[in-house]
């Protein structure tokens, strides 16, 4: 892809908001890739954790917002535990989810969840799942 890099693009207000929401400083990431290397669900992500960081650094917010990565993240904090720069991609992904959810853009509708699943799943999982996917 070809991108036009400008000060405005780098300083995208939505990305600044993401930094505030997540509490993470995106510039800190130096692209070592250790988070992507350790994440148990990298295989299922459209954009792996370290590339999420890079895309955000160079202002490619739209691509990040569209990708499934934030929803696939299981919040295990492996990325944060391993990151040499103490960046928590988990926080960034949670921040991204918040940006969606605060606009009411839910990932799941409770009514769509099959009843047998709701009945059998542990209560903890249901609470966490709703907290993660639903505003």
């Amino acid at each position, binding site marked *: 892809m070809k*991108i036009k890099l*400008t000060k405005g693009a780098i300083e995208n207000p939505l990305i600044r908001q993401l930094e505030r929401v997540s509490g993470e400083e995106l510039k800190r990431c130096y*692209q070592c890739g250790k988070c992507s290397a350790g994440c148990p669900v990298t295989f299922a992500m459209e954009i792996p954790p370290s590339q999420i960081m890079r895309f955000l650094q160079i202002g*490619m917010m739209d691509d990040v917002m569209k990708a499934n990565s934030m929803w696939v993240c299981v919040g295990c904090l492996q990325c944060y535990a391993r990151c040499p720069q103490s960046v928590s991609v988990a926080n960034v992904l949670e921040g991204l989810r918040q940006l969606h959810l605060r606009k009411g853009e839910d990932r799941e509708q409770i009514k769509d969840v099959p009843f047998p699943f709701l009945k059998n799943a542990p209560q903890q999982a249901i609470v966490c799942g709703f907290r993660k996917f639903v505003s």
Partner: protein
Amino acid sequence: MPRIGIFVCQCGNNIAATVDTKKVAEEMARLPGVVFACDYKFMCSSPGQDMLKQAIKDNRLDKVIVSACSPHMHEKTFRKASEAAGLNPYQCEITNIREQCSWVHHDKTKAAGTAKSIDLTRMTIERLKKNKPLKKINIPIKKKALVIGGGIAGIQAALDIAEGGREVILVEREPSIGGNMARLSETFPTMDCSQCILTPKMVEVELNEKITLYTYSEIEKVDGYIGNFIVQIRRKAKYVDEERCTGCGECIEKCPFKVESQFEMKLAKRKVIYTPFPQSVPNVPVIDAPNCPKIQKDKCGACAVVCGPKCIDFKMEDRIITEDVGAIIVATGYELMPNERFGEYGYGRIKDVISGMQFERLASSSGPTGGEIRRPSDGKTPASVVFIQCAGSRDEKKGVSYCSKVCCMYTAKHTMLYHHKVHEGQSYVFYMDIRAGGKRYEEFVRRAIEHDNAMYLRGRVSRVYEKDGKVIVQGADTLSGNQVEIEADMVVLATAIVSRTGADTVAQKLGIGYDKYKFYNEYHPKLKPVETVTAGIFLSGACMGPMDIPDSVAQGSAAAAKALSLFSSDEMMREPITAVVNKPTCNACWDCVTACPYSAIERDTVKNRDGVVVRWLAKVNDGVCQGCGVCVAACRSKAIDLKGYTDEQVYAAINAF
């Protein structure tokens, strides 16, 4: 009959594993002339050496052989021990039964290793029988140094030698010392102002009584050898009498002609009579003769009119002076690759594409813009600057294959300077790798990225072009896998550092080596980093390869320490392994003179009582001869022999085989 002692070393298991050392000793004991033979676990240990000394005394030995490791390792050790026991050290020889026997013959039955050790030791015995006692050569030392190049490396070397109480001659090609460092704005990683830390050292050079400074001068010719160099220096005509000039600058003021300033990297003009920069040392202007109409066609002469002490002399000519010195330090520094070589970056075509060194001048408070970042085309403050690293470096095809080492760091510095001076500006850096190896260097680069907003993009730039008054930079960000386009107001190239034009000619005058990029070669890249293959000539700074200021200063001091240690005694002892000419058989064909790689052989004459030359003869200069033996092979009348390796000794060894 000689009284020879043989000492066979086991070197722990290094030798003993595949050589039966006891058997070697027993076999040797049977040979004529051998009065003592033994083997021992570690000959080089203190007990081993004591045993050698004791055996020499007890058995009245007059020659000894240690069959052990390579003579490179312990020849000195055993010769010293022999000397301590009263022998001439050159009556001690080494047989290499480790590298040449045990380490190459893995036969566990020890048959091959033992047989070869016996043969080699036997050969050494015959060779040793022909050994003559030799005496170390004493060379007198002139305790004065010459430093070539007055950049930070040369300045440091000169100051350290002067501090050590010895005289120094500092030769600088330009009208002022200071070198490239004088051009820099602030310096990584501490961001101190370059001029502020450099000029005090420059002034120290000028004031130090032990230092004689020859600026606007170059080396013409170098003769002689360690301790005794004879150097001819060309003092180019400055057209200004240095002794009388007060440095008032009236002449510069009045000179009506201007040309581009090399010091300002063509970002500003200077007068035809000039000092490169205000804090020049010495503060004496020179006339740029090719551009002076008075000198070229006798028109003008304004400077001479206003000069109070009347020290301008348009008829001045170059002078050659001769100096005797004992050591030479080469510190001629570096240059930058011409940026025009990379058409895709647009340098020379697009006004706002500049070099890193030009950026230094823009950022320098004494530079053409007084330290404000303003672009060359229209003087506007650039709102965005793209920095392109590795411009010419790490580019086998069109540039140089090596890394220029300092540009990652100075580019990070540039982004900081830019951010400090233009708060709203955005900088972009295209890089391949960030090389920040050094104390506090990595942290420095992270600071540029995290605190001074530099946007680093991993990839090269393929094209820079102009569109609607903007400079469009087309590059890549391999981390996100994108092609990137940036509209820039200014582009800065981190140009490759290359050797000085003419570095090879200087090296040839001095007889030192250089690599394919014409950077000077150190004797050993790790263990002799400031020495050259020519004894008495040392190196420091970026003339050896890209180097930052801390390293250049460290090397300047290291080279000075080498010179001072040479000057610590009145004479130098040298190994007597040198060539000698047998006068009766030399027929003056001069084959040896041409063959000698060190120019150690002179054409000498024999005169009769009336002073008339009756014969010509080759004569070896002991001070210069390195004992390589090339002349021995070249001489067709076998008139040259190498002491310690005479034909007689070598043939005796071969015959014994």
